[in-house]
């Protein structure tokens, strides 16, 4: 009798204990790896951002001078502007299109859903070399598909890779590459909305527009937060496409912050300054993310 009670208590204690401990255990692998692989490099890079160092030889401590220099660095400011352009395009053009595509594919009337879903991940499966060749051919002035299409509808051919238009062209490539992925995230989110909710709404006589604003969008909020935050991080760290399409040019017109960071760090060997660029970039992304978290009400939810 006595022993049974004790065992019972032990079991109950263990049960309560494991419930308390569970979340910490579940998240611990990430934080262990973070401490082993990320913390050291993050601290090292933070230190680098306060020194002058060409990768070898003596280091000179500068304090915040690298950060202050950034504000007077015309190319950095230009790349910041370019990157902001790409981020705005990603969040306000690519994402709505991706959501719209996801809604279409999810709609009951649409056939061949699998075909569309597969087609939309093809861009991330296309080799970068193939994509670069293809788009350079398509943007070509005389025979490129974009200009052929424009002229077919009676418009003037454009110089897609000149200073004025190059950012738009890069964005077209980014849209090609990343719309499908965002669409997949939205699709996964839409799948987790119980179909019964829609049925109830349609019984209540709610129109499609109302259903979208009143039901779909609110229920999609967690996934939307994810997609927006990931898009912001991705577009502020945008690297490959501007480099491949236009080498960051002409005259730095398509250069992103990440391109500039790489150029300064690995081409000019200004390791310290490049780290400062990296940290400023992280701070910008962090602030934008906090605003998103607040906007989506991710804090203080019970």
């Amino acid at each position, binding site marked *: 009798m006595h022993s049974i009670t004790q065992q019972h208590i032990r079991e109950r204690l263990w049960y309560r204990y494991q419930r308390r401990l*569970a*979340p910490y255990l579940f998240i611990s692998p990430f934080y262990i790896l973070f401490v082993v692989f*990320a913390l050291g490099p993050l601290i090292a890079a933070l230190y680098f951002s306060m020194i002058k160092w060409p990768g070898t030889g003596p280091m000179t401590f500068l304090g915040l001078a690298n950060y202050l220099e950034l504000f007077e660095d015309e190319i950095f400011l230009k790349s910041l502007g370019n990157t902001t352009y790409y981020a705005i395009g990603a969040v306000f053009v690519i994402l709505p299109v991706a959501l719209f595509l996801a809604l279409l594919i999810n709609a009951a*009337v649409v056939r061949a859903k699998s075909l569309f879903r597969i087609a939309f991940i093809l861009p991330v499966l296309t080799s970068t070399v193939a994509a670069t060749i293809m788009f350079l051919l398509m943007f*070509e002035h005389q025979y490129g598909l974009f200009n052929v299409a424009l002229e077919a509808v009676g418009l003037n051919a454009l110089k897609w890779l000149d200073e004025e238009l190059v950012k738009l062209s890069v964005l077209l490539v980014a849209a090609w590459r990343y719309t499908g992925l965002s669409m997949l995230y939205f699709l996964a989110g839409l799948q987790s909305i*119980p179909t*019964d909710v829609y049925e109830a709404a349609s019984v209540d006589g709610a129109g499609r527009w109302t259903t979208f604003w009143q039901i779909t969008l609110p229920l999609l909020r967690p996934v939307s937060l994810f997609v927006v935050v990931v898009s912001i991080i991705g577009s502020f760290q945008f690297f490959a496409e501007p480099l491949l399409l236009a080498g960051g040019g002409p005259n730095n017109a398509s250069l992103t912050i990440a391109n500039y960071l790489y150029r300064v760090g690995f081409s000019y060997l200004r390791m310290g300054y490049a780290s400062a660029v990296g940290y400023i970039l*992280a701070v910008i992304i962090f602030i934008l993310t906090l605003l998103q978290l607040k906007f989506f009400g991710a804090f203080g939810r019970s």
Partner: protein
Amino acid sequence: MRTSPKLWPRIEAVAAHLFLAGALLYMSIPFLWMIGASLKKQSEIFRNPPTFIPDELVFGNYVNLFVEFDFLRHFLNSTFLAVVHTLLYLFFCSLAGYAFAKYEFRLKNLLFLLLLGSMMVPGYTLFVPLFVLAIRLKLVDSYIGVLLPGIVGAFGIFFMKQNMESIPDELLDAARIDGTTEFGAFWRVARPLAAPAMAVLAVLAFLNSWNDFVWPLVILRTRELQTLPVILAGMVGTYRMEYGIVMAGSFLSALPVLILFTSMQRNFMQGLTVGALRG
């Protein structure tokens, strides 16, 4: 004139399909061109406007791939790494995502911000310190070194957290009342309900490992161990380049992800119903 009530939905359906077809075309053109180019002689590859079907079919690019570049070995290396990575990544990310979605615990917001913050410093800023670390930790030239830093990641945790927030607490509580442990509630209730999200994450995880380029090059020294993208990139010569072979390699390299994605299709459509919730 008023359209009949049956006509509108039909027009809409046609419009929806047309829009999707347009998007499909834009998305798939480069991929289709890549397949076409893999079957061309080099001198046929650069034509403007681009051609998709070769004048003369050439299979030599595929043959060379297997004979000269030991394609199969590197393909299997990449497959092994991607499969192990995907399984571990799915497990650890969904577990942690579940904890952030379904528990209240001390420092939760702070820990979560730290997690998000870890995604924000661009990779090249950390490249030099990570290179040093890889050598100090003696990770060089081992698959453990390639896999270890990536078995769980902020991106996957964040994704799973957001997707698992819609899992009703009632279901989890019901399982707890039945005496299951916290891990049991995750494994038997939350995990199956999150199948659509896990399917997406599986594809992404596989893809990330499959395309990973920088880290394998830091870690792996022996050519026999090297992964497919590294070998494919090596074919892109500065002073000589055979595009057809690169395209053939790229196409074959896309197949595993394509197959994985196709086989996951069932999971994408596994929508939740209240019936399921009542379990």
